[in-house]
């Protein structure tokens, strides 16, 4: 088989969907209306933890135009508990999409209403009388794990949803003999991935066909179909999930949580029911993320070589991280990847995941890789400082070398490829590290504005293949050759803004020797596509691209066999380029001619040789050759298929008078292997990085000690704006993965993984004259001033009567 040429892979092709989106022709779930459609609203618990003593819905039911009012108890006629999305040795609570005896967080849906209009449905909520018995609530992670904590699920005996750990190497000996031992406590607060489009679901139970159709803003229509079927014990093949355009999904649209409520109301009324989540509802109960604390102990030799890492992470998944959404798993990923891109001799990690009276926890861009990155990359800078090394030099001494791949990390994963030192070297040049340090020395103390620069390295394990959860291990897709010579790609992957509708066309165009315009990617309809799993874990460029590239290759082989049979020549003499089958030094045939001949004139029977099984389409199954669920002698398993990497830097100016941090420069060097569309990759880097800066500087759910969430609108829960960041510089290192079809690696999460550590390192650097170090995020002006207030130097210079 001839090697496919790379004509489209690597081109910054304009995105196919942008024309319809920017001209107002996008179609989101809320844009879909069905005849006879009702509208849903949900009454939510105002308490963080409460027993439901009584519910009286009679007045609401009596309201003209109200068609259904269902409590959690009523709903049990239609559904069972939410099925687990993940259960790797976890405690799985029995919980429903509408609270039954107890509500576990403020904002939990308690009663659902379907009415002629959303206004009427909301009005009906006011007519529902509920008597609660408020219970003691717990929100803080470590408080939830304390022996006297109020219990969410008393039958558990504690608030621990899961725990896990491992020890590799002679840990005690390593620490006993170490030249230096450093210890850190590094917490991170709770925030979330905010999509422009919050959740939306339109369910239609068709009693005639006994079929349930769900239009839904989701990253994975197939997974939602399974979860809906399991929730209602409804035949899965009678459920169809359609995902139209998606207004963003950052991991937080990977479950069937409140989405099952419109299904419930449709089953109860026999009418289509739509629910479009308000921003307030989304902040209250859309999946939240982060929220953890690390304790790190690191043994380092006097020449700056990392030796031992002893780490504990305590995660907080709110009321649940298994059924409402799969948040609990991220702390296991964090534990496996906290060793980062560095080499170690001894390692111990323990993770403990707590439930608390906060909203459920799901995935958000990083899914634990961010949690792994944050403490170690902050610690790397602090240790470098203590050792008298630059942050770059300390990292260089400890990186896994570019000639050591495939490299098995001490915690188990096999790193497939990379060149961490080159990423870092390119970064220092891109951001002019030395120049910034010079300017810092020149300007320091001349005004209240303090310049600082932070760097960090990053590992972005991508393409997760996790047992016992919805984040499973394969992809299956179809490439179909049409009578007129065009090609359909049928995939369970979903375009959620990351551009697969375009990049998959580029991949298939190269494999088949056609143009991207000859290809259409069909996605977002479970009844049209194979059971592929959708974008999460940055798996598109590993699983999905490999699967579709292989399918296209096989299809091309089949088509060449057909033409070879027609022309009675060797198939090896044939290739396809620019939509034309070409015999070396001889005949040609357009794919349109071939399609016509295969399907119509004369048709397959006359021209397809017996050994070609299917020249019309190839459905291919792909899984990672290096992921492994078979524990090695130390009990380690390998869940990720590729390991993209990178480095980034932020330059800040911190105003010591006001506490305001101004981001002056951002530079990113990313290694995602072979790049399919450079424009899209850089766009992902830009967007992801700004999103990460949101978490570092402003985004935070303010829960008080009673479990009340204080900021449920976008004037009090802040997001970064374009004006908050400068132009972002990007550069690339390309280390192709040997374990994917095209050498591609994931790249959707890396840029969000880094910014928190980089920002802390930058602010630490800026505030070094004051002798303070960041302990808590986000770094709002107020928090920066609180930090500076602990500095005697600052109090002398700026303090007012402290």
């Amino acid at each position, binding site marked *: 088989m001839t090697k496919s040429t790379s004509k489209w892979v690597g081109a910054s092709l304009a995105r196919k969907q942008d024309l319809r989106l920017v001209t107002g022709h996008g179609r989101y779930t809320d844009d879909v209306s069905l005849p006879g459609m009702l509208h849903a609203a949900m009454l939510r618990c105002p308490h963080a933890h409460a027993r439901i003593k009584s519910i009286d819905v009679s007045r609401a039911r009596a309201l003209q135009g109200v068609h259904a009012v269902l409590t959690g108890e009523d709903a049990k006629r239609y559904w069972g508990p939410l099925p687990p999305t993940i259960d790797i040795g976890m405690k799985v609570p029995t919980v429903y999409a509408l609270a039954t005896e107890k509500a576990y967080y403020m904002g939990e849906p308690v009663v659902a209403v379907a009415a002629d209009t959303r206004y009427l449905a909301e009005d009906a909520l006011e007519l529902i009388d509920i008597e609660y018995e408020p219970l003691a609530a717990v929100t803080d992670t470590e408080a939830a794990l304390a022996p006297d904590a109020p219990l969410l699920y008393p039958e558990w005996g504690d608030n621990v949803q899961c725990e896990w750990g491992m020890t590799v190497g002679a840990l005690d000996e390593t620490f006993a003999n170490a030249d230096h031992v450093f210890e850190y406590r590094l917490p991170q607060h709770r925030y979330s991935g905010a999509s422009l489009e919050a959740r939306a679901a339109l369910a239609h139970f068709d009693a005639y066909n006994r079929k349930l159709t769900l239009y839904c803003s989701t990253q994975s229509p197939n997974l939602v179909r399974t979860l809906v079927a399991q929730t209602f014990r409804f035949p899965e093949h009678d459920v169809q999930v359609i995902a139209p355009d998606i207004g963003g999904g950052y991991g937080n649209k990977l479950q069937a949580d409140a989405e099952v409520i419109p299904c419930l109301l449709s089953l109860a009324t026999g009418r289509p029911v739509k629910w479009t989540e308000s921003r307030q509802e989304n902040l209250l109960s859309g999946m939240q993320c982060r929220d953890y604390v690390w304790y790190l102990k690191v043994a380092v030799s006097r020449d700056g070589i990392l030796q031992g890492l002893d780490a504990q992470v305590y995660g907080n998944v709110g009321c649940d991280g298994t059924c409402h959404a799969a948040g609990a798993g991220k702390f296991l990923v964090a534990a496996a990847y906290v060793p980062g891109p560095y080499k170690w001799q001894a390692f111990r990690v323990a993770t403990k995941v707590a439930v608390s009276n906060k909203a459920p926890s799901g995935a958000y861009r990083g899914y634990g890789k961010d949690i792994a990155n944050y403490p170690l990359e902050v610690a790397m800078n602090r240790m470098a400082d203590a050792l008298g090394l630059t942050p770059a030099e300390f990292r260089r001494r400890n990186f896994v070398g570019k000639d050591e791949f495939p490299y098995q990390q001490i915690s188990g994963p096999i790193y497939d490829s990379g060149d961490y030192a080159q990423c870092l070297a390119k970064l220092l040049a891109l951001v002019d590290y030395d120049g910034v340090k010079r300017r810092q020395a020149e300007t320091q103390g001349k005004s209240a504005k303090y310049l600082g620069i932070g760097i960090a390295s990053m590992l972005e394990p991508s393409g997760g293949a996790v047992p016992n959860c919805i984040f499973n291990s394969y992809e299956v897709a179809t490439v179909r050759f049409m009578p007129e010579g065009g090609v359909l790609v049928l995939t369970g992957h979903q375009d959620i803004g990351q551009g697969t509708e375009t990049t998959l066309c580029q991949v298939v165009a190269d494999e088949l020797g056609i143009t991207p315009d000859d290809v259409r990617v069909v996605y977002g309809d479970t009844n049209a596509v194979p059971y592929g799993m959708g974008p999460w874990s940055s798996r598109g460029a590993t699983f999905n691209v490999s699967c579709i590239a292989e399918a296209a290759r096989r299809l091309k082989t089949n088509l060449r066999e057909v033409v070879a049979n027609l022309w009675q020549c060797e198939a090896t003499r044939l290739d396809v380029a620019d939509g034309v089958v070409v015999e070396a030094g001889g005949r040609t045939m357009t794919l349109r001619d071939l399609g016509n001949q295969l399907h119509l004139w004369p048709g397959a029977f006359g021209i397809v040789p017996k050994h070609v099984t299917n020249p019309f389409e190839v459905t291919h199954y792909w899984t990672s050759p290096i992921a492994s669920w078979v524990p090695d002698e130390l009990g380690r398993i390998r869940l990720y298929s590729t390991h993209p990497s990178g480095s980034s830097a932020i330059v800040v100016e911190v105003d010591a008078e006001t506490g305001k941090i101004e981001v002056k420069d951002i530079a990113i060097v990313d290694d995602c292997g072979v790049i399919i569309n450079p424009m899209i990759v850089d766009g992902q880097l830009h967007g992801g990085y700004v999103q990460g800066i949101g978490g570092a500087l402003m985004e935070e759910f303010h829960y008080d000690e009673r479990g009340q969430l204080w900021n449920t*609108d976008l004037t009090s829960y802040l997001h970064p704006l374009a004006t908050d960041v400068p132009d972002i510089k990007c550069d690339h290192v390309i280390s192709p993965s040997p374990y994917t079809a095209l050498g591609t690696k994931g790249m959707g999460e890396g840029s969000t993984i880094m910014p928190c550590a980089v920002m802390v390192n930058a602010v630490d650097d800026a505030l070094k004259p004051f002798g303070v170090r960041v302990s808590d995020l986000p770094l709002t002006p107020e928090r920066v001033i609180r930090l500076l207030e602990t500095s005697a130097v600052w109090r002398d210079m700026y303090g007012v009567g402290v």
Partner: protein
Amino acid sequence: MKFEGESRLKGTRAAVWHALVDPAVIERCTPGCQSLAIMAPDDFELVTKVGIASISGTYKGRMRLGEKVAGERYAMSAEGAGPIGTMSVAGVVTLADVGDETLVGYAFEATVGGAMTGMAQRALLPIAKLLTKQFFKSVDQLLAAEAPPAADEVEP
């Protein structure tokens, strides 16, 4: 969330006192009050309708008066729940003479829960102050209407 203030009411301290602790007056003067049921002495169940922007809706609650020192002070506590959350208020009301009129001082602490938590500091405080002022103003008007008119006010 604390708020305090004072209102000057036309009426003697005794008249004002009797008005403030009278369930009928409370029912008439509480802004948006739809009904007041006496559950026990100084223990009322109220249904009020609030028509202010984002917190509009019908709130059902319980109000209790206590620690009464006739003509001088009393404690008031109220808790209620409505469409967007729960609210409880507790505090002390004091009375003092100012000439023939009475100065009513109040200091309340309010706790909110549910969706209104986030709005509490920014939006609810002014609303709570407004409603409290409205209450005392209504009592004042009621007292003025019931009091024998002063001579100069009857002149055409």
